[in-house]
């Protein structure tokens, strides 16, 4: 990867903002208001005027479009707007990547990556309904009772466990680590709700092989991340979290319908990781803390393997509760509580938490964290992943 064509260290996250995170359907604010509040909070965090924003990036067909946001905020020059296509939250790191790309290209100076969800206003992910006929890809699954996200990604995990003989213990440890971290995080929806081994093991099946605690939450709220040039970042309110690398990928025919993607047992990160560490100029061993998107715990196991943080052979030994804890673990994971226990903001909260770790502001701070990895959307057709670092990590 040529230095001329590498965004490494050229841009930084300078502001992060989140609304209160609510259980699904419990936000009194409409979704658009939640997004505006998150953007204002991110600007305040950065010490920037909201009118400094000149670009917007989102994903997953976010309903709150840049022209309306720019109008509401009174943005004088809307220079850049961007939508990443994927399903689920696979675009959370990609939205930051696209913001960074716009800045490096000179298309904009201050870009906000954002996501808002109000499931009371717009309907739940985990619930299907209706009686109208379905056609196309949905016609090959929905009449057979395969329609929710858990159902769309369960069979990959079954096959993964079958091919590699790993998974259940690691899945339990991942869920327990998320809940453990949420207990120190007052923003977390599951703050005050602990999870032990027995509770996990006796929890009901959603769809085998996923138990209740293998599945992400559904929430209302919004999050926003402000990205700008690294040289400008130095003068702002908070220490910059430099973007060392960001990639997105789907493998061969990852978008094939009816589960016909060529490499079925994958979190979709294999092509992205080929470029990720090379771009960042580091190896997997340099990563101090990991935020790995949990739509379902089985996808996290695959993601960590594909990111080189453990192997198919040692996953069950490495991915233990003790190793995944911020307080003393060798591979601290999802230190905010993540999508399982902090909030399911389609994964943007995991990017925010990676920034907090680089700043030293996490409620489960990993001592001396210099490199934080945050990925998004395992198993979806296009997943994305990013590495943030301190000035020291940049070298």
């Amino acid at each position, binding site marked *: 990867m040529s230095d001329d064509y590498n965004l490494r260290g050229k841009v930084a996250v300078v502001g992060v903002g989140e609304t209160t995170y609510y259980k699904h359907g419990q936000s009194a604010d409409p979704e658009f208001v939640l997004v505006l509040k998150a953007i204002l909070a991110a600007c305040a965090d950065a010490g920037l005027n909201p009118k400094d924003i000149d670009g917007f990036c989102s994903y997953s067909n976010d309903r709150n479009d840049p022209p309306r946001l720019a109008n509401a905020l009174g943005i004088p020059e809307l220079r850049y707007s961007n939508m990443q296509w994927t399903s689920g939250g696979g675009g959370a790191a990609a939205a930051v990547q696209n913001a960074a790309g716009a800045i490096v290209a000179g298309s904009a100076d201050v870009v906000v990556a954002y996501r808002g969800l109000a499931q009371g206003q717009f309907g739940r992910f*985990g619930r299907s309904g209706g009686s109208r*006929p379905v056609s196309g890809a949905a016609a*090959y699954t*929905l009449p*057979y009772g395969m329609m929710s996200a858990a159902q769309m990604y369960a*069979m990959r995990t079954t*096959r993964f466990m079958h091919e590699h003989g790993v998974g259940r213990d690691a899945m339990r440890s991942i869920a327990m680590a998320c809940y453990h971290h949420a207990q120190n995080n007052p923003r977390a929806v599951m703050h005050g709700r602990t999870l032990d081994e027995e509770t996990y093991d006796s929890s009901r*099946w959603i769809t085998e092989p996923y138990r209740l605690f293998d599945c992400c939450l559904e929430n209302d709220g919004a999050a926003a991340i402000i990205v700008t040039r690294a040289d400008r970042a130095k003068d702002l309110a908070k220490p910059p979290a430099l973007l060392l690398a960001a990639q997105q990928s789907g493998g061969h025919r990852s978008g094939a319908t009816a*589960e016909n993607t060529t490499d079925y047992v994958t979190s979709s990160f294999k092509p992205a990781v080929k470029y990720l560490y090379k771009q960042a100029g580091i190896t997997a061993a340099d990563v101090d803390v990991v935020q790995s998107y949990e739509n379902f715990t089985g996808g996290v196991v695959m993601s960590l393997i594909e990111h080189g943080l453990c192997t198919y052979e040692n996953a069950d030994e490495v991915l233990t509760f003790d190793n995944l804890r911020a307080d003393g673990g060798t591979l601290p994971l999802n230190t905010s509580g993540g999508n399982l226990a902090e909030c399911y903001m389609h994964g943007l909260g995991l990017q925010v938490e990676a920034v907090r770790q680089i700043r030293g502001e996490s409620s489960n701070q990993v001592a001396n964290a210099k490199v934080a990895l945050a990925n998004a959307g395992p198993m979806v057709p296009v997943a994305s992943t990013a590495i943030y670092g301190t000035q020291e990590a940049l070298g």
Partner: protein
Amino acid sequence: MSRATNEPHLPGLRQPAPSNDGLDAPFWEGTRAHELRVQHCTACGVHQWGPEWMCHECNSMSLDWVTVDPVGKIYSWQRPHHPVHSALTDRGPYIIVLVELPHASNIRMVGNLLGDPMQEIEIGASVSVVFEDREGDPDFTLVQWEVA
């Protein structure tokens, strides 16, 4: 190799309709005739599922539909317990299987595994098609599976 039934396995879910661009109409016409028809490239011979306007292997747009043996092997499975649709509320667990068709370029199809919903499921097991004829608007036929 296959059989047909009039007994609905998961009644009340949304029924399939051919896509409005005509792409998969031959598949749904085939199931009504109790035949499993899938896309096939006339240039390179690969089978393709789900259907697309182009062969993913050689990029030819010359695709036809062929009837394949209605059998396969279980590639993966899941057993939903939590009802996500009102029609499933009192249904109890059911089984979704992903079936690989080794004789048709290893394409995979999604369906239900009929029989005891709590049966042990073996990856690699041979299964055969049960065409499930359903009343609807219009009538339609689903492709279900049972252990062969």
